[in-house]
């Protein structure tokens, strides 16, 4: 077991749940803003799992904490770029969502 206590197990389960919620919304929802939010929620799930993995019985592993804070900044940057691209899509097509039908070749 990666954690020995109940709180750690709850964190792992909630992290997995957040990740799955994000994956589901990313696949199902056509709106691009929802997709960007979904990727962020997936990331939050991964961060929760990483932080749980960092909590040892006696020593706290600082490397996953550093990974998470680096990941937060990178996620913010990626979200900002994705949102800027979304605004360009809306300006070009009039709506910020994927087309409901596949384009014909």
């Amino acid at each position: 077991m990666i954690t020995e206590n109940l709180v750690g197990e709850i964190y792992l389960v909630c992290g997995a749940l957040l990740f799955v919620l994000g994956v589901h919304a990313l696949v199902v929802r056509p709106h691009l803003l929802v997709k960007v939010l979904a990727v962020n929620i997936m990331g939050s799930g991964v961060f929760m799992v990483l932080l749980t993995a960092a909590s040892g019985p006696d020593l706290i592993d600082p490397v996953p904490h550093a990974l998470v804070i680096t990941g937060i900044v990178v996620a913010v940057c990626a979200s900002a770029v994705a949102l800027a691209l979304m605004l360009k899509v809306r300006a070009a097509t009039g709506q910020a969502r994927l087309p409901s039908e596949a384009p014909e070749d």
Partner: protein
Amino acid sequence: MSRPRLSHVLTSLLAGALGVALVLILLELPAHSGLAEPVTEAMDRSGVGHEVTAVLLNFRGYDTFLELAVLLLAVWVAWSLGRQDPVPARSVRGPVLRGTLRHLVPVAVLTGGYLVWVGASTTGGAFQGGAVLGAAGVMLVLARPRSLPRVPRLGLRFVVALGVLVFLASGVGGLLGGHGFMGYHPDWAYALIVAVELAAAVSIGLGLVLLFLGGRVQGDDDDH
């Protein structure tokens, strides 16, 4: 009507299966000691007293350097996509907002600076401080959406890139001093780390504000 409902059931089932598989795998992960012990052993050579700061700025300086580069790149991409849209807000009249800002922004700057400084010994650091500075900047932008300050083009670009530049200079200095790229002399580590963190916090704060604006700042012409 039946096809979308079928696909909804199917995606929900697949997501549920993925969730169950993830939970089973995560609960079965083997226990490990991680890197806590090597980090603790090397702490006296790191120059700072907090493990996470030591990992971020010293042991894995590369990651943090590239992270600042990612922030710079994101600003670059957002600017390449065009000019910012005007902030869809109107200035609030009256003394309350102005008075609140006059007190809140200095407090935010003080808090950000304190978080950077305290990161050397306990929880805190460049990113937390930079986020507070960025929040103060976003607050300013939202409070005065029609009268954003005109900033010199070159100065703006220099400050956004400051974190990367200082980090790179410190890293090359370590290379020339024989400590390897991104290495520090143990006696100089504390001063260098605090300097890098301060520059990084200012760059992160400004970068977050620029990303919030989402494009090249109004009045920042590239015609000349």
